[in-house]
């Protein structure tokens, strides 16, 4: 995504979601979730070029095609994951510290996120006769990050793709 005028400001509303908005006028612009970036039709110069393809909320999904609904029903872990969401939104009563980014008390050991396949892999010739295998997981266009495995000598494993940082990273 390329912002032609000015990139939005973001509010991280939960561990999985950030919401983009115009810091000048407050207009909501984006909703970034683990599967990708959603952009408000109003963010485009000509919103009329887009037309709805599917509806994504369960309550309104009784008729019409609801790709999202179906994928949720097929996903046994969907509700477990929902329960793990930590919200950073205002709790609707006065609290001393808000927003309190990063000030979470860990009550349960967090588990790994669901299995994920790389969206790109390759071999990079680094000279000296060495070629290294690399892979990229996460959301294209999101925050860049690199994972350094242990050992030395350990190599990477599919489990390491499932660290929480992948949600917002590319």
């Amino acid at each position, binding site marked *: 995504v390329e912002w032609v005028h000015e990139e939005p400001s973001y509010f991280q509303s939960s561990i999985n979601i950030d919401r983009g908005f115009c810091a000048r006028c407050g207009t909501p612009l984006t909703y970034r979730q683990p599967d990708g970036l959603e952009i408000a039709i109003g963010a485009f110069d000509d919103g009329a070029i887009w037309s709805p393809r599917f509806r994504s909320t369960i309550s309104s999904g009784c008729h019409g095609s609801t790709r999202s609904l179906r994928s949720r029903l097929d996903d046994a872990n969907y509700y477990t994951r929902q329960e793990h969401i930590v919200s950073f939104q205002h709790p609707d009563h006065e609290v001393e510290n808000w927003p309190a980014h990063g000030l979470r008390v860990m009550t349960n050991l967090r588990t790994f996120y669901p299995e994920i396949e*790389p969206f790109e892999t390759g*071999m*990079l010739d*680094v000279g*000296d*006769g*060495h*070629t*290294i*295998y*690399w*892979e*990229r*997981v*996460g959301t294209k266009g999101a*925050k*860049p*990050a*690199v*994972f*350094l*495995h*242990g*050992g*030395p*000598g*350990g*190599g*990477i494993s599919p489990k*390491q*793709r499932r*660290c929480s*940082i*992948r949600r917002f*990273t*590319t």
Partner: protein
Amino acid sequence: VILFDQRGCGKSTPYASLDNNTTWHLVADIERLREMAGFDTWLVFGGSWGSTLALAYAETHPERVSELVVRGIYTLTRAELDWYYQFGVSEMFPDKWERFCAPIPVAERGRHDGGLPQAADRHRQKGAARGGKAWSSWEGQTITLLPEPATSDKFGRG
């Protein structure tokens, strides 16, 4: 996230090669990957040996690191090496320590003369199987406080 097998590891080739394979070669590789992906800066995450590498990278290229996340921090100082391979953890897991030392002749165990390199060589010289397995099992069985066969079994394998 970009994940990669460091030189000689995993699917990288040539497998297990230690030629031209130092911390600083790996730091340079991280830069190559960053350039390949076209990122100006990025979050650097590393655990265990990866925490050492993350710190080495961040110290070498601070302007490229937007955030640094390290876990299971182990920086390979003499004190840390001695603690793990000479005296310290050995007192916490005496039975496992005994198995670790088994491939080394008693007279050559040399706890008090900075014996890690010798111990490492001794294990390597065993060539394959026994020494390497003992070395790897030691790490696998002491990485958790309570026994976790599902974790440690992976370390003892070929």
